[in-house]
C-alpha cells in the first residue's frame, strides 16, 4: 500500500469516518493524477506520516502512532502552515485524501 493510502486510512480512523472502500478509492484517485502529482502525494504523505510528528510536535512517532489529541494538533499545524514549502508539502496529499474520504459521501448526497 502506498504511503498516501496508509495516511488516508489513519486519517479516516482518527476522524471516525468509514474506512470501507477507502483503499480502492485512493488507488483510483492517485491513478488519475499525472506522475508528478502521484509523486507529490507520496512525498506529502512521507512528510505528514513520518517527518511532521517529529518536526512539528517534537515526537519521534508516526502519524498513526500519535495519541488522538496529538494527531489533531498535528493536523491543525499542517493546515496552518502557510509558507510555500509548507503548502506544497501538504496540499497534494490533502486534496487526494479529502477527495477519497468525502467523495463517496458526496455521491450519496
Amino acid at each position, binding site marked *: 500500500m502506498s504511503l498516501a493510502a496508509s495516511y488516508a486510512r489513519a486519517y479516516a480512523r*482518527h*476522524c471516525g469516518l468509514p474506512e470501507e472502500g477507502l483503499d480502492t478509492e485512493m488507488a483510483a484517485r492517485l491513478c488519475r493524477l499525472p506522475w508528478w502529482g502521484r509523486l*507529490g502525494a507520496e512525498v506529502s504523505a512521507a512528510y505528514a506520516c513520518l517527518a511532521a510528528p517529529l518536526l512539528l510536535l517534537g515526537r519521534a512517532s508516526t502519524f498513526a502512532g500519535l495519541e488522538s489529541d496529538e494527531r489533531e494538533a498535528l493536523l491543525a499545524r499542517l493546515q*496552518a502552515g502557510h509558507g510555500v514549502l509548507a503548502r506544497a508539502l501538504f496540499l497534494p496529499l490533502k486534496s487526494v485524501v479529502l477527495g477519497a474520504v*468525502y467523495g463517496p459521501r458526496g*455521491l450519496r448526497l
Partner: protein
Amino acid sequence: MTLDCDYVVAGTGPGGSAAAGRLAEGGARVVVLEPGPRPEPRPDAMEAVSRYYAHAGLTAAVGEGLLPLPYGRALGGTTAINSGTCLRPPEELVRGWAARVPGFDADRFLSLVEEVWIRLKVREAPESTMSSSSRLFLEGLAKLGIPGGHRLHRSEDGCEGAGRCCFVCPTGAKMTADRAFLEPVKGKVDLRLGWQLVSVEPGSPARAVVRGPEGRRALSCRGVILACGSLSTPYFLASVGAAAGSGLTVHPAAKVFARFDRALEGWHGVPQGAGLVDPVEPRVRYEGVFTPPELAALTIPLEGRALKAWMDDFPRAAGFGFMVRDSSRGSVHYPLGPGNPVVRYRMNDDDKRLMLHAMRFVGKTLLAAGAREVLLPLNGLPASFTDAAALERADLSRVRASQFQLMAFHPLGTGGLGRAVDGGLKAAEGVYACDGSVVPESLGVNPQVTIYTFGLYLAERLLKSHAA
C-alpha cells in the same frame, strides 16, 4: 493533416473558438487545435477535475504561499468547467485601451460584445434555479438594507440548476465556447482534438509546428492564432520576440462558509446565481459559489475532527464567494515548456486589505441571513464567528496574505494589448493572440465575454485584410 490552410488556431477556449468560428463563417480554411479531450459529465467532481482541468487541477501560483489557479484543458477550454457567468467588460476600461493602444477600435469592440451576448444566449439566472446560498446572501443584504444584490447573467440554454457547472454541465445546457462558436460551423473547420502547438515561426506564410496522436506536423498558413490561455500563450509570444510573460492579474478569490440551523442542501441550484458589487469598494465583487463536499472539504480552512464537524453539517452549510480586481501583478515562466508554466504572484497590501474587507462583508451578510456560524477563509487563525459585532471588532490587521485560503480563476494580462500585441492583436508577421493574455489589465468582472469578443474582433480584422 493538410498543410494548406488559412489559419491555425491553437486552443478552443472562448478566444480560439470565437475566432475560428467567425473565420470559418467568413470562408477561411481553419485548423483548430485542442490538446484536451471532449468533456463528458462525471458523477464525481474530483474525477472531472482530474480529467478536464489542466494539471489535474493542481496548477498553482507561487508567492507568499500557494495560490491554486485552476483552468480547463478540454474542448471549450475553461468554458467547459466555468460557472457560465457573463459580465460585459466595463466600457471605461475598453475606451481606455483604445486611448492607449493605436489601432484598437473601442466602438467596434463594444458592438461585438453585444453579438457575443446574443450568441451565448445570455440571460439572468431564473429565480427557480437559484441555490440556497444565493437566496440567503440576497436575504442577508435585504436585512442589512444594502441595495444592489442581483441575479447574475449566465450563458445557458435550458439550465435546470444541476449545480455542477464547474465539473462539466450534466445537462448540456451551458453554452460553452465550442457549442456557441464551433458547432455552427461543424464541417467547415478542421478540429483536431489531442493536438497542440509546439512552435510558431512568423512570416508570410507563417509556420506552425503541431504535435498530436499522428506525430509532428508543420503547417504553413496565413496566420497562427494563439489562444492557448494566459498561462501558455506568452511562451509562443516570447518566441516571436513579443514582450510577454509579465503583467499577470488573477482576480484573487475566496469564499466564506456558514452553518445554518436548517437543511439547505446547497448543492442544488446554480452555484453562481447571484452577485453584488461592493457598495464601498467597487473593486470587490461578490458572487455565489458552492462546491461538492469533496472539494468543499479542501477549501474549508480546517483539518481533522474540526473539519469533520463541519462536513457532518454540510447539508446545513452555505457559502458565498468574492473576488478582487487586483492591482498586484505576477508573471509566468517556462523552464519546462509551454504546458508547464511556473507562475509567480504576490499580493500587495491594497489587495490584501480588500480581501479582508470582502470576507468580513460576506460573513456579516450571512450572519444577518440567520447563520449560526461563519468561517472566514483564513488558515491557522481563529476564523469562526457567531455574531456580527465580534466579526466587526476582530483585528485582522496582522493577517498575512499567505494565510488566506485563496483561489483564482481568471489569469489575464500576460500578453497585454499594446505591449505584446498591437491594436490589431498582432504580435509578429502572421502571428496573433486572442485569449485572456491580451486583456491588458485586471477587469474586475468574469472575463469570458471579453475574451470571446477579442476572438471575434481579431477574426473580423483578419477577414477584412484577407479580402483586401
